[in-house]
């Protein structure tokens, strides 16, 4: 086989010392010519074809950070020189992760595979030891629940670790799912109950992973459970403790639009369905037992234990699934929308809780009004079921998304949930006007475009052009923008502004990455092994990603990926071959494997 290797650099800032790689390429069997083409070369196809003919190449390898960029040019040249265009091979250094300490060895391996005509992913299969059958799932949202249930139903032990007091994650906060407008809780709650009742799932709520060590297939992890101060087994969630508790705190589950007590249950369907004491706000705990303690006295089951110190559990597992989800971007950093300044500018998550039948207003969509707090005497803006409903609602898309200052990426779900909001407003408030300010309508899934069409037909005013500012004209909120389709400047007086805020990786993602030795992409999400071909595995053997923590995605995609992850885990368990870190692969191993595939 006579092979010509062409090094073409696409990104001028990409820095990999090519000299050793070129030297290595020169010594590979079959390579008759290596040529360094420089940054973004534009050779004439005719002269390239001439070169290919002169050397009588049987295979052409394009090597570089993004060699695919140059493929059309080489295809043209190869076609002109009567060589089979299938014999153009790409050695994609960047895409196969040739960076960091072992970048040069990795690049050599990638190049060797290309020269031998073997796909890198076929040759680079790490060997590993036997696999422990238990799995650790980090994150108890829909992705974690789905993956845990898939594995548990296959008869494998699962440890599900959740940071907050209940599983369910963000999906539990939602009212309806798009585009079918199914009730989110009706899908999620049975799954949550199944998790709680499953013999093969051990649930750790209020817990975090302290460390992970070991090798793929035989990891050891320590799970630290924060004190709950309530006996998990004894509590029957009668709620007396919460009734008597004098401390009020903004409810995390209600996105801050309502208040909960210091001893609370996040929501009535929480799993485990047990009350929890917020140690940061409880008077008894904050004063070291000198004040209050009324819940302990009133509890009929005597299940409150202020001496709870939490616990530490060491587990052994074979695989780890990351399903840590996301947080919403804090819109106070974008001053022109006036979030935090104007009370009736709210985030999508707050609206989600407002319109939820289990929310503070019982599902009535209302505006905030000024009330004087009885306890502190301060004026505050609150949602109350008796408040008037908004007549005009503006929904602003892409808040902080697709914006080079905040998130450069598209958060993917906002277009659809915003349209859903329009529907909910129109359904619950007859005669209300909804204005959707969007840049591009990204209705990408099954039935989504039809859903967008339906919302338009329902009479929502869909304005193409993002609103630039939200301001106050007297008592009236005013949303200003440019409708670029109608070619008009628009200015709408509205009562409620909903910001379709973008999504960011959940807090703690960076720490978890460090803990597990994983990579994150430029936007902060976990890096998968290969976005197209292997979207569930990571660089580290036996560590998988599912759901939002890998990148924004909607519920159907999250559930699908969670199930796919379970398949990956089960494959590693049942194959008997085990798994290993891809990064630990030696150049000689890959080379040998590539050669062996090459020969037969």
């Amino acid at each position, binding site marked *: 086989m006579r092979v010509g290797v062409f090094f073409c650099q696409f990104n001028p800032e990409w820095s990999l010392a090519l000299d050793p790689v070129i030297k290595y390429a020169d010594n590979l069997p079959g390579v008759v010519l290596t040529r360094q083409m420089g940054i973004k070369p534009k050779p004439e196809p005719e002269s390239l074809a001439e070169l290919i003919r002169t050397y009588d190449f049987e295979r052409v390898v394009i090597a570089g950070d993004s060699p695919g960029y140059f493929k059309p040019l080489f295809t043209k040249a190869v076609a002109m020189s009567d060589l089979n265009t299938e014999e153009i091979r790409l050695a994609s250094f960047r895409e196969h992760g040739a960076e960091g300490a072992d970048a040069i060895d990795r690049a050599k391996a990638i190049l060797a595979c290309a020269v031998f005509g073997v796909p890198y992913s076929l040759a680079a299969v790490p060997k590993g030891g036997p696999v422990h059958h238990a799995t650790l799932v980090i994150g108890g949202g829909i992705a974690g629940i789905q993956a845990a249930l898939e594995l548990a139903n296959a008869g494998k032990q699962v440890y599900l670790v959740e940071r907050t007091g209940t599983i369910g994650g963000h999906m539990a906060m939602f009212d309806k799912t798009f585009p079918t407008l199914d009730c989110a809780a009706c899908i999620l709650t049975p799954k949550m109950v199944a998790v709680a009742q499953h013999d093969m799932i051990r649930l750790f709520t209020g817990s975090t992973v302290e460390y992970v060590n070991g090798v793929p297939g035989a990891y050891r992890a320590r799970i630290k459970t924060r004190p709950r101060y309530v006996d998990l087994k004894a509590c029957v969630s009668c709620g007396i403790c919460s009734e008597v508790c004098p401390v009020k705190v903004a409810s995390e589950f209600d996105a801050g639009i309502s208040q909960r007590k210091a001893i609370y249950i996040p929501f009535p369907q929480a799993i485990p369905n047990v009350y929890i004491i917020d140690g940061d706000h409880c008077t008894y705990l904050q004063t070291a037992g000198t004040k209050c303690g009324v819940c302990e006295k009133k509890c009929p089951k005597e299940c409150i234990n202020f001496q709870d110190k939490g616990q530490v559990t060491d587990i052994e597992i074979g695989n780890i699934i990351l399903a840590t989800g996301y947080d919403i971007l804090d819109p106070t950093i974008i001053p022109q929308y006036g979030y935090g300044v104007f009370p009736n500018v709210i985030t999508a998550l707050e609206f989600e809780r407002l319109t939820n039948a289990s929310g503070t207003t019982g599902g009535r969509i209302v505006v905030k009004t000024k009330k004087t707090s009885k306890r502190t005497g301060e004026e505050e803006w609150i949602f109350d079921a008796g408040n008037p409903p908004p007549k005009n609602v503006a929904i602003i898309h892409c808040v902080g998304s697709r914006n080079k200052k905040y998130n450069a990426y598209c958060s993917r779900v906002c277009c659809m949930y915003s349209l859903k909001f329009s529907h909910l407003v129109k359904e619950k408030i007859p005669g209300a006007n909804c204005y959707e300010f969007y840049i591009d309508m990204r209705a990408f899934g099954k039935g989504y475009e039809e859903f967008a069409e339906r919302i338009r037909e329902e009479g929502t005013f869909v304005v193409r052009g993002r609103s630039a500012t939200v301001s106050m004209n007297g008592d009236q909120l005013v949303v200003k923008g440019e409708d670029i389709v109608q070619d008009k*400047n628009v200015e709408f007086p509205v009562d409620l502004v909903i910001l379709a805020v973008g999504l960011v990786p959940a807090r703690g993602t960076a720490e978890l990455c460090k803990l597990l030795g994983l990579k994150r992409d430029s936007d902060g999400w976990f890096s998968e092994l290969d976005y197209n071909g292997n979207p569930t595995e990571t660089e580290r053997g036996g560590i998988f990603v599912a759901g939002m923590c890998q990148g924004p995605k909607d519920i159907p995609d999250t559930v699908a990926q969670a199930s796919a992850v379970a398949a990956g885990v089960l494959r590693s368990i049942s194959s008997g071959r085990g798994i290993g870190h891809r990064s630990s692969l030696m150049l000689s191993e890959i080379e040998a494997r590539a050669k062996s595939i090459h020969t037969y």
Partner: protein
Amino acid sequence: MAIRVNPKLIEDLTSFGAADVNMCYHCGDCSAVCVHSDELYRFPRKSMRQLQMGLGEKIDTALEPWLCYYCGQCSDQCPREANPGETMMSLRRWLINRYDITGIAGKFFRSKKTEILTIVAIGLLTAMAALTYHFFRGSIHVYDGENAFLPSLLVHLFDLFLGAFLAVILLLNAGNMWRLTMLKGKEISIPWWLYLKEFLVLPLHFFTQIRYAKCDTGNREKPYMPWIVHLGLMWSYLTMLILVMVFLPFLQSGPQIDWSVHIFGYLATIGLATGLVYFIRSRIRMHYVQYKKTHATDWVFVILLLIITVTGIFQHIFHRLGLPVAANVTYLLHLMAVTPWLIRMPFTKWAHLIYRPLAMYFSEVRRSAVALEQKSEVSFRPVLQTI
């Protein structure tokens, strides 16, 4: 009517300063945040669109770039960092080039080498002319009166000649601007008497630049500063121009200070110096988005004006101190900078002194014409009616 598309329009515009037009994805943030963008003149987004589509004719006949004072809010808010404010600035340079019938402006904007060489050549020519005169008649030891090195009457005549040259070019270019914006780019008929009706707009904007005061510079500590400095610079400049063009013999007489004339000179000098310091300081600090990019012609503008101001101050001081040689040398240097400066005026950014108030005037005439045809329904809820 067929629309001609120029696919290289953006590429062409890069030499005038705009670099990021293609980044724009038309969210409309910039148009919505701009206080000057209204139903009839909507920018900067629309101009960005026209550029992306290569609608050269629409760009050439547009008044919008002149309605922008570059407060920088649009570029500040742009999610794509497409820099709409800088694009409007570049479009103004582009339009100066378009209005210019001689084609010199384009050469200056496209190549700083051409511009600098031209300036140096004109400066040297001026020096040669002065030295030739010196060879025959003038004496370097005499500043004023008979046998003066540079007799003020002669310089005055030269000034008037230059002034006439400038006026002719500017008039022709302004006429060209009118032809492009009001005849070629018109969508409706404009009755002639509207030009009379709206005439007051011209002096109003020329002397007050009142639209600049309306710019929303809320992100700054002193929101009125850019307007005041710009206005002060313009007034000082205008005063100095009139002094030099009309009252030069009085200005150059002395060594006694003639307060009735010189007081204006002092005030104008203070204004110019302040403006220059402000300009240079902000361009170096780059603390607001509008100062981040400075075109080569702008630097030439500032440096020349700096030389003129400094030499002007010194020749004045030397003259009053009774140092005729030093005064004559600085005066020659001064003239070497002033001549290219004056000749350069209609072909560079300076010309916006004329074009901008004209554009405001034309835009108001157009607006009245539209109102006449009752096409403009100034409604804030247009979407409701059309969807």
